[in-house]
């Protein structure tokens, strides 16, 4: 199992740098991962990450369309906040596994 150090804390990650233990995540860590992705986090980023973390913790599948139902932002804004591959980036920064809803 690989490890990485963010904000002075060591966390467990997989081969693609996704957290394998979401409880190790903190907001300070998120800020540092976001920096690697070229993103400066705002309140909106944190709000949607909280939605994603809650959804993950309750065992539900994550998908881009679920963002429209988050009550936080719509998909268009999601793309603006995490450009390119929003769900992939947002889950990485939020310290939860990459969504495997496909198979």
């Amino acid at each position, binding site marked *: 199992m690989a490890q990485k150090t963010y904000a002075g804390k060591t966390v467990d990650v997989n*081969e*693609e740098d996704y957290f394998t233990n979401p409880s190790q995540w903190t907001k300070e860590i998120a800020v540092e991962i976001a920096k690697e992705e070229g993103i400066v986090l705002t309140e909106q980023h944190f709000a949607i990450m909280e939605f994603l973390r809650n959804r993950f913790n309750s*065992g*539900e*599948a994550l*998908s*881009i*369309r*679920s963002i429209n*139902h988050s009550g936080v932002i719509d*998909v*268009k804004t*999601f*793309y603006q906040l995490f*450009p*390119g*591959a*929003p*769900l*992939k980036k947002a889950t990485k920064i939020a310290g939860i596994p*990459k*969504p*495997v*809803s*496909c*198979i």
Partner: protein
Amino acid sequence: MKKLLILGAGTAGTIMANKMRKELSGQEWSITIVEKEMNHFYQPGFLFIPFGYYTRTDILKPARKFFPKGVKVVNSEIEKIDTSQNNVILKNGTTIDYDILIIATGTRISPEDTRGLKEELWFKNIFDFYTIEGAEALAGFFKTWQGGNLVINIADNPIKCPVAPLEFAFYADDYFIRKGMRDKVKITYVTPMSGAFTKPKASKMLGSLLERKNINIVSDFFIGEVDNTNKKILDFGGREVPFDCLVSIPLHTGDPVISKSRLGDEFGFVKADKNTLQSVMNKNIFVIGDAGNFPSSKAGSVAHFQADVLEKNILDFIHNKPLTASFDGHSNCYIETGFGKGIMIDFNYTTEPLPGLYPLPVVGPFSLLKETRLNHLGKLFFKWIYWNILLKGRKLPVTSYMSMAGKKQD
């Protein structure tokens, strides 16, 4: 007399009717199944229709052939589930009471949820192949098509049979080569995922297969709308992909009755425990197959493996015992890759598809994550298994839980 009520007689509901009738005494338990369709489609067969390999009659049988004796069949649409009264209201207003309810109402495509998808080009240049109507319309279109941009687009997960769009791409390559017009067809695979698949090993293998077959991938594309005038699809990030023929795998939702009955998530999938398959709201309600919000594949194999778990848990529930069986997310499928070959994958909630042999180590006979002719024959033969063994709840020589035997790890 206690009452077990099953909603939906697709793959999952039919298997459960067969299994539970065997397990529950006819003196103590009545079993009723409600289904609006009179016919049962072998859904894996939809893939073959656009290319003319199957027609409707090859994949259709009367649903009644698969119900065991001693199960009452009600042919009706469902209006609402009233959990406070433990009953289900049918379209004609009659109600059916239950002591235990199994929801197996499946999933359906919802093209109206994407702007421009189901408008003037629908069934002219835009098709689905997840319905018999869509698959047949596409077959008609392909017969005379002169070529151009063929775009295969997955709107978003979850979708039924997540490998079907890939199989479609492989078959399209095969089909247009055989027709001698592959040079006139540009095939583009447009997906909201970051590759052919999300799980690394399968994604790499399938991604390189797409490349070898000269199929372009556009990844991380979440469709926002279809421009019918200029024939292109647009994503929210501002990207565009032009098409002459769009094969869409639209958004999927649960049965409308789920939302109406307040049992589902925002897409109408029943909220249930991914391991016990029990509804999170009502202890006497269980869910199986595509109808649930489980983070597993929406596929027949999943329904089949879940059925063993659900059978045990319902018996535990009846005997006031804690639910002991736990579904591990096990799924497997054949992936047709064209030219008489296929791949097989086998995985669960936590283990990604790995190479190896299935179901037995050393002898297989099926090869995991590898193209073989035997895998293709397995897929063709599976239709017989489906009608004769699987739907009837009979045992297959495979385990419900995923096994690591025969799999190769790094």
